[in-house]
């Protein structure tokens, strides 16, 4: 009797697990089936290497959006990595366990704030500041980078802390016993030992930044043009889909799915790299 329930539970769980994978396959197949015909029709080169996007006139070049995504994501990392790492090192190495137990969950709470709230704060506080003190329309690559830089902090901090904490105590003690100072120990021994975990945290943060949509729509200005400076507005791959989805029909709609295909491939590559690095650590 017991055996039957055992088997039933096992098979049931297998079925549920497979359904999750099935979802992923379904989404991937759907995006590719809808999107790739257009890429073939316009030609991969015209699609990826042209910056002319006027879908109603049949021009589908997404270069400015690919660059927009890369620029904003790059900018967010320039801001997020030093801040996040500093915070992680401080919380892992310099703070008492009890305080860390309070501060780490608080930082992780940042991840729970909806992105539309970040965008709203960005539009009302950050954008006017940029416009007044730095010039340009305010809605810009810089605004997007700052907002995303803050949004990826919890990912970078919490995974980096875990990586730093996983470094065996004996490493630190050994280094200190050799006469190294605390800072020397941290940057020559602990950071080196935790390197792959930290890199993984950065790549996961990058994945979050490149996939973020709502906050970017609100602060980046969404202009279809390759930005000349960080004060120019720009459009990312995700915002291109979200902005025009509601109204798109026919080839316009296919072009948005094709944008999704490009985004899907970029995110898949990032995830695979992250997996590889995490496995390396083990």
């Amino acid at each position, binding site marked *: 009797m017991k055996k039957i329930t055992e088997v039933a539970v096992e098979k049931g769980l297998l079925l549920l697990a497979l359904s999750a994978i099935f979802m992923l396959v379904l989404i991937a197949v759907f995006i590719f089936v809808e999107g790739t015909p257009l890429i073939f029709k316009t030609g991969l080169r015209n699609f990826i290497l042209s910056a002319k*996007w*006027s*879908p*109603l006139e049949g021009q589908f070049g997404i270069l400015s959006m690919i660059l927009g995504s890369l620029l904003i994501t790059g900018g967010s990392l320039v801001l997020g990595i030093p801040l996040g790492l500093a915070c992680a090192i401080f919380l892992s190495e310099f703070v008492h366990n009890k305080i860390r137990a309070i501060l780490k969950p608080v930082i992780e709470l940042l991840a729970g704030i909806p992105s539309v709230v970040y965008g709203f704060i960005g*539009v*009302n506080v950050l*954008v*006017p500041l940029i*416009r007044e003190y730095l010039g340009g*329309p*305010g*809605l810009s690559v810089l605004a997007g980078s700052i907002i995303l830089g803050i949004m990826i902090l919890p990912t970078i901090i919490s995974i980096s802390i875990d990586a730093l904490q996983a470094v065996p105590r004996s490493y630190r003690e050994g280094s200190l016993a050799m006469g190294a100072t605390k800072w020397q120990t941290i940057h020559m021994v602990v950071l080196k030992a935790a390197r792959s975990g930290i890199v993984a945290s950065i790549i996961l943060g990058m994945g979050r930044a490149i996939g973020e949509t709502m906050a970017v*729509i*609100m602060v980046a*200005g*969404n*202009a*279809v*043009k390759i930005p000349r400076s960080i004060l*120019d*507005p720009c*459009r990312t791959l995700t915002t291109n889909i*979200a*902005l*025009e989805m*509601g*109204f*798109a*029909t026919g080839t*316009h709609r296919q072009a948005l799915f094709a944008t999704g295909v490009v985004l899907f491939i970029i995110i898949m590559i990032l995830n695979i790299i992250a997996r590889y690095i995490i496995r390396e650590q083990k």
Partner: protein
Amino acid sequence: MVKKMKKIYLILLLVPLYLAGCARRHTITMAGSTAFLPFAEQLAEDFMKKNPGVNINVQGGGSAVGIQSVLNGVAQIGMADLVTLPPEAKDLKKFVAAQDGICVVVHPSNKIENLTLEQIRAIYSGKINNWKEVGGIDKPITVVSREAGSGTRSSFEDLVFKGLKLRGDAIIEDSNGTVRETIINNPQAIGYISHGVVNEKVKALKVDGISPTCENIMAGKYKLVRPIYLLTARDSQTDVKLVLDYILGPEGQKTILEQGLLPAKICNIETVGR
């Protein structure tokens, strides 16, 4: 506790069944233009109060979706706010439900009161980049537009652009509300929004010296006006006709006027004239 849970489950089970029962009554779906959506919701609510046997389901999706949905039968009434309807719509019956002025808006602190159609065209195509070129302060102009496919944008481009292309560095927002919000936050910005969305926090400019008041729009003096179409299939049910009669009749038109759009009557003459 268990008893309570059971009750909750029962309710959870019954509510959808009840709703499904409702839906099986005559349901008419209206879909399309997001600009007309709030008005359609109000009209549908009023109509359902008077005709309890009919259920009207109002959806957005945009003008293009509205036309598509009627063509493939997903919706019975499509809403489209375009100056020129796409060729697919030629087999549908068209009714002008209302007309909507498109207002060119700037920040209230902007000294400019009037722009000519020619100046607006030059600003949106990138020939004019600074407010001083149109008589304002020496500051760059931040041009705000809508996303490709938006009915407001298509209408604006049809009325203003005459074959020109939108400048590349224009800020793109995805609704009338967010365009207004951008203008409120930026003293150097210019944008265009539906007449019904203009409030005291933005300044609607005169175009060619004519301010976008209800009277001027109704009299056909203000140039930037678009019709809001209701579209149905050629062979529609009697219920659908009932809804159309209500919206196009005096009661529906009164609601439209009260809610901030302009009734259709003059617009009908207008579109024929154009």
